[in-house]
């Protein structure tokens, strides 16, 4: 136990020492950027805390505090796990699963306790805390472990880092939105109708008297859910189909490729509209509509990669040695194919967000009584002629930020995983 403690302390000291050394090495520009980033983060945290303190739910600060604590604990678990793997206490392959297991345990514990304290809100509070905590832990791990690696890759590394950070930050805000909003996003007449940003309502109010700040904080929930769901469906089907069809080749490959090309040829939104128009409104249906549109993207990318890898000598050697198709696919082909799939995935996320917004704008896919950035744009449209710019600007900027975050992450990953131009 004391050994672990020692390792921990010396680890922290070493980290601080390296950090200080690195700080000295930074150019003036680097120091400036670091300063700005720190100030910006402090600002965000400050806003978060002030929101939490004045939240409608009354437990805002508790929720924020708990998520930070949870995130910190999971981060420390990760650090300990890494140390243990390094000092060979646990085998390398077991490292990550151990971390996941421990993280799951602690999350369930927190969730369980929270459900006991607030039984009426059980589902909401536990999901908010768990997701919030996980996102914070992810952010911590990203910066701590990812930063050194990404920094070596130069600009693309920073871009990836920025992209992921934006996405994580927005996810965090959305996850705990219920507990930090000053007003219920949907209740009408909490304030004067259509009033511009003021001290009472920092982002103004809608034509129905709803608070824009609350709506902006909470409006991303649907979009994120739809995005995650559709990408999961899309990825699973697209990658699997791609692997199987292109590996087997022959008639199967031809038919599936043709099918994929037909779908791919369609204007994405139009197809999504067609499907969504036929299904009843809802998160799952919207996710399905979007998923179908993007399956061909994965399929094509996977297919071109598989076709290349299939010809490689070591794959042929494996076949000659009698390896089963399944093994070859999983152990040889898949690892080669994953980088491209990951890049497509991030672009997919961005597209899913934008398509979801588009569908909502047309009026498809969502029930009306939900706070959603897309809805804000639709409803706010009629108010533009009165010069009420605040009803659409803030939700719109949030959509842009979210899509931008995914796009940046995808761009950065693309350059890192498939380097093109050399110096």
């Amino acid at each position, binding site marked *: 136990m004391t050994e672990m403690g020692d390792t921990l302390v010396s680890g922290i000291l070493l980290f601080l020492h390296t950090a200080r050394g690195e700080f000295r090495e930074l150019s003036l520009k680097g120091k400036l950027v670091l300063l700005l980033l720190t100030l910006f983060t402090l600002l965000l945290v400050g806003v978060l805390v002030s929101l939490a303190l004045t939240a409608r739910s009354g437990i805002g600060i508790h929720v924020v505090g708990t998520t930070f604590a949870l995130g910190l604990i999971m981060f420390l678990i990760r650090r300990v796990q890494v140390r243990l793997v390094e000092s060979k206490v646990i085998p390398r392959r077991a490292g990550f699963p151990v971390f996941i297991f421990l993280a799951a345990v602690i999350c369930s514990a927190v969730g369980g306790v929270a459900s006991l304290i607030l039984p009426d809100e059980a589902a909401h509070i536990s999901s908010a805390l768990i997701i919030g905590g996980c996102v914070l832990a992810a952010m911590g791990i990203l910066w701590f472990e990812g930063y050194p690696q990404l920094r070596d890759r130069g600009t693309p590394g920073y871009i990836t880092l920025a992209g992921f950070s934006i996405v994580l930050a927005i996810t965090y805000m959305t996850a705990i939105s219920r507990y930090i909003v000053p007003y219920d996003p949907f209740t009408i007449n909490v304030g004067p109708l259509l009033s511009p940003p003021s001290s009472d309502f920092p982002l103004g109010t809608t034509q129905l008297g709803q608070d824009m700040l609350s709506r902006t904080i909470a409006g991303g929930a649907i979009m994120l859910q739809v995005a995650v769901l559709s990408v999961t469906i899309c990825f699973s089907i697209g990658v699997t189909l791609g692997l199987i069809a292109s590996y087997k080749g022959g008639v199967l490959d031809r038919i599936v490729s043709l099918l994929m090309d037909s779908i791919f040829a369609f204007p994405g939104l139009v197809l999504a509209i067609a499907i969504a128009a036929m299904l009843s409104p809802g998160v799952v249906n919207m996710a399905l509509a979007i998923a179908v549109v993007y399956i061909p993207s994965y399929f094509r990318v996977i297919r071109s990669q598989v076709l290349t890898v299939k010809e490689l000598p070591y794959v042929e050697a494996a076949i000659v040695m009698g390896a089963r198709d399944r093994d070859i696919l999983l152990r040889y082909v898949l690892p080669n194919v994953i980088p491209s799939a990951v890049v497509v995935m991030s672009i997919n996320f961005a597209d899913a967000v934008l398509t979801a917004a588009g569908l909502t704008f047309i009026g498809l896919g969502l029930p009306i009584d939900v706070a959603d950035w897309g809805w804000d744009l639709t409803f706010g449209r009629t108010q*533009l002629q009165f010069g009420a710019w605040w009803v*659409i600007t803030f939700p719109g900027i949030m959509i842009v930020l979210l899509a931008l975050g995914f796009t940046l992450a995808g761009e950065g990953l693309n350059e890192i995983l498939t380097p093109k131009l050399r110096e």
Partner: protein
Amino acid sequence: MSLRSYVISRILLTIPMLMFLLTLVFLILRVMPGDPALLHFEKNVDPEVLAEFKARLGLDKPLLQQYFDYLFGVFRGDFGLSMQDFQPVTKQILDRFPATLELTVWAMLFAVIIGVFLGIVSAKNYDTFKDNSIRIFGIVTYAIPVFFLGMILQLIFGTYLHWLPTGSQIDPRLQPPRVTGMVTIDSLLAGNFYAFVDAVRHLILPAVTLGTVLCGIFIRLTRTNMLETLRMDFVVAAEARGLSDQTITYRYALKNAFLPILTMIGLQFAALLAGAVLTETTFSWNGLGTYLVDRISRRDYTAIQGTVVFFGLLVMLVTLVVDILYAYLDPRIRL
């Protein structure tokens, strides 16, 4: 292979794709919802009325027969009758299509010109502030929902500055007689200069909006292509012979990028149409996009089906033309 055999094989390839596409649309819009007629009335209808309704639209026949009627109808150019007003859908589509064509052509033109220009500037100033800002611009414009951008522009240029109109294609008082359906051309044909100017003024915001969202990909394509080409031996050799910067940029580097840009125009056509639907809605532009959205709100499933098929056919046609054009222009295939 020779150009001729390529064209023939390419056209032959289109046929199965076409079949897939038509079948897919049929499955989604006719088979999946169960009974589109019932859905139209939101399940709230007298059975007799429903029966008559279905008979009139040919929706009472067995499904397989409906499928073949549908296929033959498409080949004849007949997309059925609208649920809303029992008018031929084809006519309604063709009525609204020219407006969409006008918008999309100008938008694409804008996207390509701006995109290529910025791409060149970006490539020639590699790794400088100019380069990086242009790249950021390209990324950000991709992440903006087209309708959000449209609304912001409406706000700035319409509501605040009063420079440009924010909706529809032309002031109704100046509307020229309809010849092509494209208001700018019709104004010119009618010799009405004021109408033309007004039509152009109405066209600017929607075309710029749609074009801006699409230009990002052209910026990146041109930039990557130029960077690659500018580093190639024959470009440096040309520089060593003292050829001017202009010659090298256009005759050497850009010429190489021309074909990929052409292909990209074809590839982006689908995205263009999708964006057009949203742009038209934002700017109250009376085209196929607003038609589609309108029909959706009225649950006019036959019209929706016709429009979706039309969009699909359009994209296929454009892709085919671009592929053939590409084959024609690429000297390696031609010779």
